[in-house]
């Protein structure tokens, strides 16, 4: 269980409250208007921002003070998920050893992860030689290697075309199911939420609301979400 215990995030005149829990292996979308604080909430969970008040608990353990790399979470950003000066295999290797001290068994794991995301044989390539979709797959493969129980997605597929995005969402769903990972996904697109996340946290007007069924929420959206969706 991931618990946000009376979290308050304050940044200048921005204010966001969150007080709810997400069951393990759930797939939850974070939807809401631009500037409502979806990415800020994800950054707080990932450890890049400290909440002004409250605690974050994972399986009952307080992780609020843990450094980002020590949290039970892997994150995919909208951009810049790979280091351009490292090969694809080295980028994946960082998920196993931050110092890139890799044993033979680690190289086998990297090859298997690349195979899992459909990029066999591309380990020696530099990220710049890959397409956007392939880069997303490499970053996802690294999450696979890290084996953290929470997968945070900060609009990582926003720049992909509809077919590629659909493929990636399906791949995330498969991997999450295999790993029993809890997925948190920020998205601007309700279709993404419907495709991947049965549950949705509505972030609007300074509050991140407890998860609700995505289909029901989108069928009868509250005023803030309705305005955002143009309904």
């Amino acid at each position, binding site marked *: 269980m991931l618990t946000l215990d009376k979290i308050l995030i304050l940044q200048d005149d921005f204010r966001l409250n969150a007080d709810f829990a997400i069951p393990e292996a759930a797939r939850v979308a974070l939807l809401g208007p631009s500037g409502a604080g979806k990415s800020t909430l994800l950054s707080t969970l990932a450890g890049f921002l400290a909440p002004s008040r409250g605690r974050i608990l994972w399986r009952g353990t307080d992780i609020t003070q843990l*450094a*980002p790399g020590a949290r039970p979470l892997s*994150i995919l*950003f909208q*951009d810049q998920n790979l280091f351009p*000066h490292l090969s694809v295999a080295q980028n994946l290797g960082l*998920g196993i050893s*931050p*110092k890139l001290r890799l044993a033979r068994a680690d190289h086998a794991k990297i090859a298997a992860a690349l195979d899992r995301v459909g990029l066999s044989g591309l380990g020696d390539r530099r990220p710049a030689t890959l397409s956007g979709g392939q880069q997303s797959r490499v970053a996802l493969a690294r999450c696979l290697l890290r084996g953290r129980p929470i997968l945070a997605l900060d609009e990582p597929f926003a720049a992909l075309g509809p077919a590629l995005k659909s493929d990636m969402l399906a791949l995330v769903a498969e991997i999450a199911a295999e790993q029993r990972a809890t997925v948190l996904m920020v998205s601007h697109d309700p279709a993404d939420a419907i495709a991947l996340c049965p549950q949705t946290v509505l972030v609007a007007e300074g509050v991140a609301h407890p998860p609700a069924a995505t289909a029901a929420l989108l069928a009868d959206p509250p005023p803030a979400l309705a305005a955002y969706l143009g309904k």
Partner: protein
Amino acid sequence: MIPAASAAVLVAALVLAPLGAVMIRAGGLSALTAADLEALRFTLWQASLSALFSCLLAIPLARALHRRRFPGRSLFIAALGAPFLLPTLVAVLGLLAIFGRRGLLNGALQALDLPGVSIYGPWGVVIGHLFLNLPLATRMVLQGWQAIPAERVRLALSLGLGPAEIARHLEARMLRAVLPGAFLAVFLVCLSSFAVALTLGGGPRASTIEVAIYQAFRFDADLGRAAALSLVQVALALVALAIASRLTLPAGFGAGLDRAQPLQLAPGLPHRLIDALILTAAAGFLLSPLAAIALRGLPALGSLPGQVWQAAFTSVWLALGAAALTMALALPLALAAPRRIWAEPAAMLPMAASSLVLGTGLFLIAQPFVAPTALALPVTLLTNAALSLPFAVRLLLPEVRALQADYDRLAESLNLRGLAPGCGSSPCPGLPARRALPRASRRPFRWAIWAPSRCSRMGAARPCRSPSIS
């Protein structure tokens, strides 16, 4: 492109015509003396070491400033720029108040029965340049740190990379991109050092090319030697420019989304203590001479004669005029630089010129037509504008490159040309030009206003420098 070509021709004429005038008056170039060659050797020695030490010390200082937040941090960074604002001679006086024979340091050493230290001599020149240029190098390296996209830092932190791995994967690449430019900037400033070498050099052993030019003018009346030395200085600067441009590699981080940097960089008491030590030492070295100047100068402020205020007023309007002229030349050159190979070297040309030769040459050119004394202020304005140009262009260039990367295709697709959409026929895209001014004005104009104000009068050293040249 016509405004840029005109600006380049004007700048080249401004730098090369005075040099030619001095050569013609001298009837050609004179051979260099043994003392001149010694000055050349010392100039290269001190400029290399000053640039090396400034860059080496700037790395830990900029890193500490980047990764720590503390009360008064912004004020501290602003105070770092203070040595730029002072005339070089005043800055040297501040250094002497701390490190001079009767300075605070030697006073303390004497009280402890320890041998004193001397700031005079070759190493004194290097220390003087370090005091003046460490802030410049620090600002440039700090900008490099701040330019690493927050997403990259977040990625590194989320993967559990420690300070050593962050240094390897992020900081080393940034430094590889930033340091050649920082080294070049400090090297070029020190190449034409005059006042520091004259006051702290302590004799002929520590004489620079600019001092040798001064001696050729003032004591030997040998214009041919002055011109020859000036040519050597230009050649050295051009070689340094060429080497730096070959060494500079793009950092290749790409653009970020302008998100706030995460604050948990290098956590832990040992890292915090090291940074605190670095910041304290830098504050002691850079700010104590300034404090000494303020303590000595402020009480006497009210008793200054009226002529000083009149001179201050003259300086202000000269600075405003020079700033306006500098920007008029800098903007077309900066806009052309990403597409035209000649634009940046043309803008850098004044940096290589001797201000003594420049001023003398301009007077020689004007002399047949008007009394030189009548032109003292316009020539000063023109010289200062030219000497500030390299800094203004270097400040505008990163913004121009970013703007052209962002808007070039849009401008081309809308066929925007000239300064206004639809006007003119130059291939220079209108949108970047129109947007460069407001966006670039965040920093460059601020510096452009004061940069010429501290350029020395002709015949003095060239202390024009900017804290955020990059």
